[in-house]
């Protein structure tokens, strides 16, 4: 009883857990992955699957751009079910007042080697004819992609399983501590335990500064060709940045099926998964303001999801509390899909004691405590 079951246990078979399992297995570790339901069924299934370079902060830009490069490398071996599409992102400037922000963003991306070009009003209308006339322009980032997250999580897990990892689904995890995971099927022990439980991470390891940040999405019937890029308003970052109150920001994605995925919203609502009519209404109205043709399209489904949010918008990646045997890879807010690969590489580097592929300090899980002391 309480025998060591693996070299590493990863709790959470969402996109981050799956990526971590694959990276640790690639390092030759025997990995066991535990999930209370089924792979890719949690927050991973609720999000948009936008692989995006995001510049809310330098570390975020570093992590997302590194991860995007890793996704590019991976794209050749991803199965078709992942629906990876290099459609790129258009960051929309609603009016002339936002044009300087377009240039600033372009320069920041350039500083990280990310190709981006400013597009004027006429160019924007050509790229996306369904956008309303009168928009000032946009920043086009051709290197961004979209994919279908549940399939991607599964693909990463399949890769891990191919390297000898084991997946146990339907296991209710109750607590994650140093070298030990308490579950409905008893305690599992391993020298390395990784909490990749996303929005639920803080319920399983006390003290993790992660809270659920609810979002809504609406998906339409099939309208192939309605738009060709992931289209996001520049104001999206302002919405993602504020931790209090509720906010909506225009964000639309064309899916491989021709369906349109419409977002986005943020609110702190605990674990109430019910669709909030007021927020859906605001979100849809905002979307129609940018894409008037959306108004008449058929909406098939609405759902909610919980982003795992941290106070400084950066994930927690690394050893927790300086304690041996307990690692965290969680708190990715709305960037879990994108940064799963970078997170996994960084975690694997830290676990192996290698020089990490990216500066790990901004993602140090203990940084809040360290800052308080400093």
């Amino acid at each position, binding site marked *: 009883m309480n025998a060591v079951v693996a070299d590493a246990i990863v709790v959470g078979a969402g996109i981050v857990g799956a990526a971590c399992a694959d990276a640790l297995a690639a390092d030759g570790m025997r990995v066991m992955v535990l999930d209370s339901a089924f792979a890719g069924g949690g927050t991973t299934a609720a999000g948009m699957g936008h692989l995006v370079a995001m510049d809310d902060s330098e570390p975020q830009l570093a992590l997302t751009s590194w991860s995007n490069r890793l996704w590019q490398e991976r794209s050749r071996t991803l199965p078709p079910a992942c629906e990876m599409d290099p459609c790129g992102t258009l960051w929309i400037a609603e009016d002339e007042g936002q044009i300087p922000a377009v240039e600033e963003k372009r320069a920041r991306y350039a500083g990280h080697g990310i190709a981006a070009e400013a597009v004027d009003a006429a160019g924007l209308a050509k790229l996306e004819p369904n956008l309303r006339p009168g928009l000032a322009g946009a920043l086009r980032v051709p290197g961004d992609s979209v994919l279908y997250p549940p399939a991607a999580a599964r693909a990463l897990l399949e890769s891990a399983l191919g390297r000898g990892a084991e997946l146990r689904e339907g296991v209710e995890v109750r607590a994650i501590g140093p070298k030990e995971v308490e579950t409905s099927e008893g305690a599992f022990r391993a020298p390395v335990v990784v909490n990749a439980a996303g929005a639920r991470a803080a319920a399983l390891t006390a003290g993790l500064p992660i809270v659920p940040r609810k979002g809504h999405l609406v998906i339409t*019937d*099939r*309208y192939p060709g309605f738009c060709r890029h992931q289209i996001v308003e520049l104001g999206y970052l302002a919405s993602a940045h504020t931790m209090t109150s509720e906010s909506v920001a225009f964000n639309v994605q064309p899916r491989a*099926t021709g369906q349109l995925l419409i977002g986005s919203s943020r609110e702190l609502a605990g674990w109430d998964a019910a669709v909030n009519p007021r927020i859906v209404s605001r979100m849809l109205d905002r979307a129609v303001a940018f894409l008037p043709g959306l108004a*008449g399209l*058929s909406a098939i489904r609405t759902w909610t999801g919980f982003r795992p949010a941290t106070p400084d918008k950066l994930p927690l990646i690394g050893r927790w509390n300086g304690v041996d045997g307990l690692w965290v890879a969680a708190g990715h807010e709305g960037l879990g899909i994108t940064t799963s690969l970078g997170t996994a590489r960084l975690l694997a580097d830290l676990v192996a004691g290698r020089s990490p592929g990216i500066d790990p300090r901004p993602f140090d899980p203990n940084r809040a405590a360290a800052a308080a002391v400093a």
Partner: protein
Amino acid sequence: MTGADRVPIVVDGRPVEAEPGTTVAAALVNAGIAAFRTSVAGAPRGPLCAMGICHECRVTIDGAAHRRSCLVEVAPGMRVDTRG
């Protein structure tokens, strides 16, 4: 019903006469049309439930896609397209 009472509609570019008060689905069935649309994998499909549940009877009506033909009554001049 005399011929004068019939409702003229256009189906896939061809004129069809329908009885007033009939649904577009019924009009298509009466015109001998079995395939109202193509499935996502390319197979021909027609109505199953005929009461708005299954969505298999979807056609484009007057330019609007994904209309359930079993729920729409024919109107003069209506343009129906099964080739969506």
